[in-house]
């Protein structure tokens, strides 16, 4: 029998907050602005895209205290149990003195209307603590989730480059107080189950993964909330009731990454940011891809497990994972089953997940050195945009250049993430040549009949989608010239 309590506890700037009236759909931003009169954080979009609500959340990860930028607008209060929330108000020093990040922004004219500014300050703050002397690429990556409509960003970038000349990250209060906050948080994380409210106000935070399994047996229709980068919008945009809501973001048991016999197993609660660190090392193309999912705040919250479990046809991780031959483990109570990821997606909005069942882990067979792998995401705007079409390719060739294994999977081209089996058939056993590509291009029409929507027309999806095969061919056949446009290298 697990211990239970009926309140959540977290640190907000310097204060310890205890709440027994948190609602399952209450967002951190509303809590800050409406209940705490902390109005430095703004609502610009309520969907995790603009970053005006950016705050930091410190959490214990394997005993280490990690501070990450998050979108307060789609972060639920209950997910903060045992965490340290840091808002822009926490940066203001005695007598109105400004923090190095703030002073740099002032001196370099980094604000105009100022509405987005607290969010930029918090994103830059998180970057500066992690990387005091960032490259321009690192700055841009840290700001992918922050929109500014006035400055054109140039002044903000100038400020970001200069922050370290205003102060040392090691002397920042959050760094100085690290040990004390770690201690306070470990006390708050008492391993108890949290249950608050009934009916439409019911929320549960399981004590651990076994407890989660148990809760879902008794409440099989509960909404499982992990990073809330999708469920958050169910509330803020569609006002859906999500109760009973089960918050699994804190479960260390779902946050593990392990490698066994060439297979990487990633817990369903592993965030994009955490996965990136490991995946980019093993499969660089996935690192590049993850860098273009959402903004930093969304990557700090969102999980690969959630990206799979919600079954979106435009989720960015399923196509490459399918191409890599990944499988997932689903758990219900004590029972587990493992199935190929591609079989999990049955139809639009329908996945092979029974009531009470949850995604526990995804298993990715690591490609050997002789395997060629790529994933290409095509969007209207390069960063922080949702896929028009995404193609992933896994290829094995004999020494004389014959295709012995090929897996091609796409997102944005059908009602589910889907393999291009006709294309694969047109390639398998053939020489890896331009002529083979020409034949394979014709097979796309058998595999996909894409739709037109606000992101792209059917014609564009079909054309750009199949052109990705040509890109993959060029990249895998020693083509010398530039093949893709690049943000990071100056022309």
């Amino acid at each position, binding site marked *: 029998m697990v211990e239970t309590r009926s309140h959540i506890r977290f640190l907000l700037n310097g204060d310890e907050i205890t709440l027994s009236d948190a609602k399952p759909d209450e967002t951190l931003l509303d809590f800050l602005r409406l209940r705490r*009169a902390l109005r*430095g954080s*703004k*609502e*610009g*979009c*309520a*969907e995790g895209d*603009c970053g*005006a609500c950016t705050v930091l959340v410190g959490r214990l990860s394997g005993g280490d205290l990690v501070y990450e930028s998050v979108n307060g607008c789609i972060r639920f209060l209950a997910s903060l149990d045992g965490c340290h929330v840091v808002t*822009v108000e926490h*940066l*203001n020093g005695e007598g109105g003195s400004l923090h190095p990040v*703030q002073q740099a922004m002032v001196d370099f*004219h980094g*604000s105009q*209307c*100022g*509405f987005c*500014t*607290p969010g930029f300050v918090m994103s830059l703050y998180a970057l500066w603590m992690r990387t005091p002397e960032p490259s321009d690429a690192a700055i*841009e990556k840290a*700001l*992918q989730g*922050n*929109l*500014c*409509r*006035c*400055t*054109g*960003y*140039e*002044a*903000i970038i100038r400020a970001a480059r200069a922050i370290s000349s205003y102060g040392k990250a090691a002397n920042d209060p959050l760094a100085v107080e690290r040990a004390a906050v770690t201690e306070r948080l470990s006390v708050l994380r008492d391993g108890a189950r949290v249950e608050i409210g009934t009916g439409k106000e019911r929320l549960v935070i399981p004590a651990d993964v076994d407890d989660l399994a148990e809760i879902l047996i008794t409440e099989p229709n509960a909404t499982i909330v992990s990073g809330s980068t999708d469920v958050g919008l169910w509330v803020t*945009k569609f*006002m859906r009731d999500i109760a009973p809501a089960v918050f699994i973001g804190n479960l260390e048991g779902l946050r593990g990454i392990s490698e066994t016999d060439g297979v990487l197993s990633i817990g369903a609660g592993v965030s994009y940011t955490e996965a990136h660190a490991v995946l980019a090392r093993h499969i660089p193309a996935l690192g590049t891809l993850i860098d273009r999912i959402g903004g930093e705040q969304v990557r700090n919250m969102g999980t690969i497990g959630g990206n799979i479990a919600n079954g979106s046809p435009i989720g960015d991780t399923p196509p490459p994972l399918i191409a890599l031959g990944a499988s997932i483990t689903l758990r219900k109570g004590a029972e587990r089953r493992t199935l190929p990821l591609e079989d999990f997606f049955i139809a639009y909005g329908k996945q092979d997940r029974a009531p009470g069942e949850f995604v526990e882990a995804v298993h990715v067979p690591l490609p050997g050195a002789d395997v060629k792998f790529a994933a290409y995401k*095509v969007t*209207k*705007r*390069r*960063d*922080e*945009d*949702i896929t*028009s079409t995404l193609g992933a390719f896994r290829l094995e060739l004999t020494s004389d250049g014959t295709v012995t294994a090929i897996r091609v999977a796409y997102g944005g081209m059908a009602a589910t993430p889907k393999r291009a089996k006709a294309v694969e058939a047109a390639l398998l056993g053939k020489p890896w040549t331009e002529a083979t590509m020409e034949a394979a291009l014709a097979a796309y029409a058998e595999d996909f009949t894409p739709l037109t*929507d*606000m992101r792209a*027309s059917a014609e*564009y999806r079909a054309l*750009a989608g199949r*052109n990705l095969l040509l*890109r993959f061919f*060029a990249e895998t056949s020693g083509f010398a*010239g*530039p093949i893709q*446009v690049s*943000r990071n290298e*100056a*022309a």
Partner: protein
Amino acid sequence: MNNHTPDLKAAAIKGGVATDQRHDSAHKHVSGTAVYIDDMPEPAGTLHGCLGLADIAHGTITSMDLSAVRAAPGVVAVMTGADVPGENDISPTGRHDEPILTDTLVQFHGQPIFAVIAESREAARRACRLAKVEYEALPFVTDIGELDPLNDKLVTPPLTLKRGNAAEAIATAPRRLSGRMRIGGQDHFYLEGHIALAIPGEDQDVTVYSSTQHPSEVQHMVSYALGVPSHAVTVEIRRMGGGFGGKETQSNQFAAIAAIAAKKLNRAVKIRPDRDDDMTATGKRHDFLVDYEVGFDGEGNILGVDLVYAARCGFSSDLSGPVTDRALFHCDNAYFWPAVKAVSAPLYTNTVSNTAFRGFGGPQGMIGAERVIDEVAFATGKDPLEIRKLNFYGPNSDKNGDRNVTPYHQTVEDNIVHRIVAELEESADYARRRRQIAAFNANSRFIKRGLALTPVKFGISFTATHYNQAGALVHVYTDGSVHLNHGGTEMGQGLYVKVAQVVAEEFQIDIDQVKITATTTGKVPNTSATAASSGSDLNGMAAQNAARQIKDRLVDFAADKFQVAADQIVFLPNRVRIGNQEIAFADLVKMAYFARIQLSAAGFYKTPKIHWDRDKGEGHPFYYFAYGASCSEVSVDTLTGEYVVERTDILHETGRSLNRAIDLGQIEGGFIQGMGWLTTEELWWDDKGRLRTHAPSTYKIPLASDRPKIFNVTLADWPEAFEPTIHRSKAVGEPPFMLGMSVFHALSDAVASVADHRICPRLDAPATPERVLMAMERLKAEVAGVSKR
């Protein structure tokens, strides 16, 4: 800074004109202490509103069952058009075509049809969804491509500009061509959405805090809606979280409904639509279709131009008249059209009523002109830059005097485009890079580069002449500190700090002695919108005028008291020299007070020289022109249409800048916003007439990583305003927006490379990766077709 002690020995004041004074609120922006309307402490019992939006593009409401809405938890009141006590209309131009809440006729998907007022914003939003509305559908049109610009329904009378005989010039020209360009609209995407907080007062009074660029208009609209005199309504705004034109008229609706509810319920009412409702129910930049016909010679000299600018105006006129007028005023950009006819067609569509947006039709007008230039360049096989330079206005010599008259018969007197473009061409190394890119493209299969240099000439003044006036109110307190108020609003552009610099300069006191205060209709009446790039020009002059009145009184007083000639009294930094002695400014002020000298003044300014006869299409609508140019290089992926901006160089002028740091921010920000308009920002309506790009997840404004990889921005240091503007500075709000055109034309240039620059790509805007790819495919197909024949 709170207790500033002026330095009485300073050689110069802090924060005078022509200094890089930081934004007055910068320290508050970064610390989250700058107060936007939603951050204000709410009066006890404040209620919250949410608008119920129609879910049909065109139709008649046959029944509206709001009983479930009324019964929902927390709901205090539900309002429809019938609850408007005064006029149910917020048409800003008096055309009576824009109901606050429509009664029976729905004219666009998302039109407000009722309002819910509840105890919390959440309760109001939830209740809104419970309405049961039935409609009888009517045919609708969202795309102006389906309309005939010369015969279909207009929302406001069109304009014709004519000089010479365009038809004849084109007919007799050695060469001629025609075409059509589609130019997309743009959402403002101010980070702070619309908001109004209305607090009822005694009698008929109400105070409305409104995120608006035009407090006086909000005041008037609220008074019409309530059926009360303007004196009963006070509208105040300290700062907006961005405006860009989107809060020139679009604030009226929220303010009017909040005020009506506040008076009806006698409680404070706040309305803050969520982002989706804001983007769905408020107007945007106008989309245009430009039909052009041009006659030219083999050298690329343009001889005659015929242009039709058709605009998607939406269901009502709003500002579509002046917007489409301004498009025509910029159908020349920086080019002399020897014979020209330009006609506007402000078309009625079943979409939200389009409105002001930075440039106000000017950008669309200009990019039509640039398309004409491109066509002539491709037709003559010359570099577009060569054709641009060939057709510029001027040069300004008597011999060429006839090359300076605009299509609206104003003579360009201050033309500096030749020098701007020549300097930029040099600093951007255009010619060498042009050759490099050609060599690169010849050897690159998948990636193509493009390069373009485009000029900007933008007319400054409201074309509604009466708008070109401003007022200010300046108080000097007995401790020497100054209270500054004027009719301009602060939306981030730095207007407040610029005007404060002007006042500091006038009194020769440190800027910290000048308190910048919220814009309110109670202090300065009958103001114009802060728009048309006019903020500093108008309000700076008005504030200077107010300060000078007080200064003159102080001089008279001092001359009398110290018995010196007036010309022996000089305002030095934080002090005044009177004859042989110097006394602190504050001390002189205190003496003046005791001598009963009035230390407060209302200043006023009206722009000289301007006039405009719309019926004739002739006049001098612009006080002056602002100039700039930009040069961009892009790389394009021929497989997907994806691109990056490799480098942009900008040379822009703002006369003798009041504040170069602020102006630089306007230029950089304007360029990126203009680039966004022409690249990734796409408005998309579905087959039900629903706007489906109504949030940042679907509507993509530029990010930091969309900036040019190399970005060189220079403020020309040599120009000064031709006219006696405030300290000879020039407007900077809108002109830089159109510098973004160079990215669009560089993309077009890269596209053209797939057909060896023999075919004009006729790229439409926005040039999304999709449009870029499809244009390349079209050109490749045309080349293949030609070679087969």
